[in-house]
């Protein structure tokens, strides 16, 4: 078996591996003995947030399950770039069936493991945002409602990237995609549309729902760990920037993801039994311009005739999230104890 040495490097206070911490505080990724579940050699683009998110999440799930894991994958970038036969980057048992059925296939795997008495083997299903909020939504809701023993991970890059950057139900307002072109007075994706899947998941009263970004490895791994500690349907929604689709620099993937959180546009929180139990506070509150202006998909909001009106609407969305989830540490959360009050 060929091996690839794992490199570690420090990036200021957001250190990837935190090798200076005690052993207990270190990440799975900092462990030279981690499984490397999604191995090197795959064909993701440079700076792919999804490849990063999948490796982080699945390695953490592998540690949590002592290596007893089966993964089901929806059609999409992750499937295509990881497994062009006869090559595969997966070091775990992995099954791809269709675009829209990963939650149901995972239910079937979990049922088979249960009936076979293999209670130690755990099941994760993974999909992009299209496979989660759009075409896979019926199967996902069914899996949630039955509380099947599956951790479903959505790698959200906010559009159909594998087919060439088309709008999904998770594409944010004003974003340019190939089917929401930056043309006309309301350029880009419309306001007031789209699905907030984490909240929809919470409405199913499943035991665990969380959001994360690839910018905070500790938080992401902790959430995978907590998700794996419980049984039943669990949902993890990870924001994974796509340099190709977002028009951001490959070297900016972590930065973009961090700004999504620091602006308040992507609230990072977790919910147990349908109730929000914790949020990751914003460390440096940042205006949305900083997030938007480094992405080509929002280029039409800037330049010679900046659309300050649209930027203001996006800022209002961020502000509302900050209030709703209490994302500023000093501000009390506007969260209803029974769920999210908006």
């Amino acid at each position, binding site marked *: 078996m060929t091996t690839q040495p794992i490199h570690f490097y420090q990036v200021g206070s957001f250190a990837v591996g935190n090798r200076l911490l005690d052993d207990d505080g270190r990440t799975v990724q900092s462990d030279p003995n981690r499984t490397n579940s999604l191995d090197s050699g795959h064909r993701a683009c440079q700076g792919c947030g999804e490849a990063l998110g999948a490796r982080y999440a699945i390695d953490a799930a592998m540690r949590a399950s002592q*290596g*007893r*894991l*089966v993964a*089901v994958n929806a059609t999409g970038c992750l*499937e*295509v770039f990881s*497994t*062009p*036969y006869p090559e*595969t980057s*997966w*070091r*775990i*048992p*992995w*099954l*791809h*069936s*269709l675009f*829209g*059925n990963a939650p*149901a*296939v*995972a*239910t*079937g*795997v*979990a*049922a*088979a*493991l*249960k*009936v*076979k*008495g293999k209670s130690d*083997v755990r099941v994760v299903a993974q999909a992009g945002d299209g496979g989660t909020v759009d075409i896979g939504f*019926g*199967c996902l*809701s*069914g899996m949630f*409602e*039955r509380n099947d023993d599956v951790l479903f991970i959505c790698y959200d890059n906010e559009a159909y990237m594998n087919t060439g950057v088309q709008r999904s139900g998770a594409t944010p307002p004003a974003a340019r995609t190939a089917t929401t072109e930056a043309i006309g007075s309301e350029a880009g994706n419309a306001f007031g549309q789209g699905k907030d899947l984490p909240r929809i998941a919470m409405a199913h009263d499943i035991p665990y729902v969380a959001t994360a970004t690839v910018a905070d490895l500790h938080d992401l791994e902790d959430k995978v760990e907590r998700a794996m500690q419980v049984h039943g349907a669990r949902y993890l929604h990870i924001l994974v920037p796509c340099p190709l689709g977002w028009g951001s620099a490959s070297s900016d993937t972590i930065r973009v993801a961090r700004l999504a959180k620091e602006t308040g546009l992507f609230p990072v929180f977790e919910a147990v039994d349908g109730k929000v139990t914790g949020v990751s506070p914003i460390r440096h509150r940042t205006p949305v311009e900083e997030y938007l202006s480094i992405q080509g998909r929002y280029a039409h909001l800037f330049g010679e005739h900046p659309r300050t009106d649209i930027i203001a609407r996006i800022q209002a969305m961020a502000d509302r999230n900050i209030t709703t989830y209490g994302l500023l540490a000093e501000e009390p959360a506007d969260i209803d104890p029974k769920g999210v009050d908006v």
Partner: protein
Amino acid sequence: MLRQIEGSRAVAETVALCRPEVVCAYPISPQTHIIEAIGVMVASGALAPCEFINVESEFAAMSVSIGASAAGARAYTATASQGLLFMIEAVYNAAGLGLPIVMTLANRAIGAPINIWNDHSDAMAVRDAGWIQLFAETNQEAADLHVLAFRLAEELSLPVMVCMDGFILTHAVERVDLPDQAQVDAYLPPYEPRQVLEPDDPVSIGAMVGPEAFEEVRYLAHLRQLDALERIPALATAFEEAFGRPSGGLVSPYRTEDADIVIVALGSVLGTIKDAVDARRDAGDRVGVLGITAFRPFPNDAVREALSGARSVVVVEKAFSIGFGGVLSTDVAMASHDTGCTLRTIVCGLGGRPITSRSLEQAFAAAALDELDSLTFLDLDHEIVERERTRMTTTRRSGPSAENILRDLGTVASRID
């Protein structure tokens, strides 16, 4: 054990004897009694270990079956009609992945207009999906074919669909000889998957294959279907030895030895056809019947051999390809292209239209006189059709044809004799 039992119940009890480990249920008439009965057996502990999962759609039912089968469990589900179409992407996928899922198809028409009654449009819609498709003539055969289906599926790593006519078989109460557990256990060994999701030996299943190998993968699937042409008769022989009655096989000929007219059909209509053929025999026509049990893979050689002495072949079909004609007829024509016979198609029984022995007898008599059209729609009400054609010609906004025709007809039940 001999039982007076509903077809669905007989299938459910036989499937349970096959020890399925994951059963998915989604209701659609006319298959619901099957999964309801299995659900009761799982809840009571009579069928264990088994996970019975109520899913949110047929697409999920087949998808759960895919996951379960890939993880090494024996998986079963049942569907019909729109349900089969709703799961069709997963139906193809199960075959492409080589997963030995067994599914009952309670044959039913496809809408619009929505219609819950029997024909074979659903089975024909997935003819090319890569599943083995076996058609039951009776409830005894419907039950027996499931035992054979699990063994065949698992031997070849191919999914098998057992087709039984909706309502006509599923809801008919008649005598069925149900096997016992020991007999089934002796015939059907435990499922040993060819590929399985297992942490100790991780594999990637279902990855992308490009043009450099796709044709070979498809051709291999074809070869495995051809293997089934060998295995189905062998397993039918083994079945007869184990259970003491014949069931299954590729084709079932009836009075074909000296026949110069052979009627070809699928499913329960074979019973009515045999009655009509007996009547025509009494009238002096040398008529026989060839029932097709294995529709996919299609038994070309067996069909050609059975039709080799026939001057005329009449294919009786409960489905047709709109804009062309018979579906089964095309296969029969290919199989018999060098036998010199004349081939005609009778389309009948669509959406549950009763197929009477009297109408069939008349058609077979016409065939004997070479007076049967090459494509005949049995008992079609031409007057009603013409009335609607006229309405469509004279009125742009003529409205839904189905509603217009029902208005013209008045009480539908009064027309059935």
